[in-house]
C-alpha cells in the first residue's frame, strides 16, 4: 500500500532525501546511501520522478580525474511542492507509528517541522 497517494514508501524516501537540501545537486550514490535503496530500486524511482517533472537531472561539469562524469539530481519547484505535501501527508496520520524507512523518518523530523 502506498504511504501517500501516488507515492510508494521508497519513493517517499527518495523525495525526503532530495528534500533535505533541495537546492543542492545530489549523486545517485549519495541518495542510495541516504535511503538505503539498491540501484535496481533507486533508479527506476528517479526515472519516474524525472518523467513526471518532479526531478531534474544534469551531468557533472568537471569530473574527477580518472572517473566518468556523474549524473546529478535535484527537485524541481513542482517536485519540491509535491514532495513536501506528500511527506506531510505521510507523516501526519503515522505520527504515532514508527516510520517505514530511514529517510522517511528523517523527513518526518527534518522536512516537516511540526512533527519533529
Amino acid at each position, binding site marked *: *500500500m502506498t504511504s501517500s497517494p501516488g507515492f510508494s514508501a521508497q519513493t517517499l524516501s527518495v523525495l525526503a532525501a532530495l528534500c533535505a537540501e533541495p537546492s543542492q545537486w545530489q549523486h*545517485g550514490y549519495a541518495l542510495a546511501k541516504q535511503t538505503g535503496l539498491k*540501484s*535496481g530500486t533507486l*533508479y527506476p524511482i528517479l*526515472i519516474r520522478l524525472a518523467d513526471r517533472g518532479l526531478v531534474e537531472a544534469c*551531468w557533472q561539469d568537471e569530473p574527477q580525474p580518472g572517473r566518468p562524469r556523474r549524473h546529478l539530481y535535484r527537485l524541481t519547484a513542482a517536485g519540491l511542492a509535491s514532495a513536501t505535501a506528500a511527506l506531510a501527508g505521510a507523516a501526519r496520520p503515522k505520527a504515532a507509528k514508527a516510520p517505514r524507512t530511514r529517510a522517511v523518518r528523517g523527513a518526518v523530523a527534518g522536512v516537516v517541522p511540526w512533527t519533529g
Partner: protein
Amino acid sequence: MDRLNRAAAAVAGALAWLLPAGRRDWGAAIWAEAHEMPPGLARLAWRAGGAWVMAREALMPRRLGRAALFAAAAGAAAFAAWPQPGVGHAAVSQFHVIATVLLLAGLPLLARRFFGPASPSRAGRSLRVLCCAAILAYLPALYIVEAFANLTPVQAAYRRIVCPFQGCGGAPGKSTGGPPWAGEIAFLLMTIAYLGVILFLTSRRSRVTRSTLAIGTGTGLLFGVVMYAVAPLGLTNDATDPWLPGSTADPLVALAWILLFGGPAAAAALAAWRGRDPAGTALPRNVRIGQGIAAGVLANGTAALFVSALGTSTTALMLKSARLLHWFNHGHQLTAFAAYRYEASAAGGTTVYLFMLIWFPVIGLIMSALGAACTPPGRPASGN
C-alpha cells in the same frame, strides 16, 4: 570478481544499445556511479541492479509488449480452437473464438473507461493476467473436449455403448461439435461476468484494498490447486482422482469441501478484519463487509476459473496424447475399448467445471457475506 564485473559491463553495454534514446543517459548514469561503490561485491551488486534497470527500460514500452504478447497468445489459442472442416456447429464454434478474443481485448479498455485504471496491487495485476490466460487456455481445450464428447464413434460396438448416454447426432467419425447457439450465448455471458467482476474488483475505482486482493487471490489459488488435485479430469467416477481412490474419506476431498465453504468465509473475515484506509483507521462496517465479500467472491471465482481451465486443458491434452492417457492409468492394462471409454468419460466429466464456474462464486458470495458480517474490526495494522 573482476571477471564478473567485466561480464556485468558487457551485459550493460548490450542493454544500453537496446535502450530508447531518452533512456541512454540513465544507463550511463548508473554505470558512472558504480565507480563510487567500494570495489568487490557492493560494486558488483550495484552494477547488477543497474543491468536490471536497463533491461526493464529496454523492454519498454510495456504496453506494446503486453499487447504483442496478448496478440500472440490469442492468435495461438484461436488457431488451435478454430473448428476443423466437417465438425458440426462450426459457425457457433467460430463465433465463440472470435467473440472471446474480442471480449478479452475490448473489455479491459471499457473497464478502464468506466472503472478507472488497474489497481497498483501486484495481486490484482496477476489476477487479471491469470484470468486472461485461463480464458485463452479454455478456448482450444473446450473445443477439443467438446469435439470428442460429441463424436459419433466409427466402430459399431463403440456406438452401442456410447450413443445411449451421450447421443450421437453425427455420422460415424464426425462430431457435432460444440453447443448450440443458446448454450454458446450462455457461456459468453458467463465469460463476460467473470471478466467484468475481475476487472472491476482489480480497478482503482472499486477501492478494493491490496490486502483484500492478495487474500482473495491467494485463497482462490490454494483452493484451485486442491480442487485440481481432486478433479484433474472432471468429477466422474472413472476420471476423478486417478492417484487416490476417490471417496469422501479422501483427505484431499475433505480439504476441498472445507475450502469451498470455509475458504471464502475465512478470506472474508480476514479482509474485513484488516479493512483499513491508507491512514490506518478502521473502515466503516459496511465498507469492511464489502471488502470481505470481494475477497470471498475472488477466492471461489479464482478457484473455479483455475480448476476449470486447468482441468479442461488436462482432459484435452489426454485426448490428444496416448502417453498421458496411459500415465493417468498407471498400473492398468488399457485395451482400446477401455481407453476409449475412459476418454469419453473424462470428456463428458468436464461439464462439471461449468457448474463450478457458476456455483463456486455464488457459494463464495454467501459464505463471505456471513464471514465478513461476523468479523469485528482488527487492531491497527502496519500496512494495508
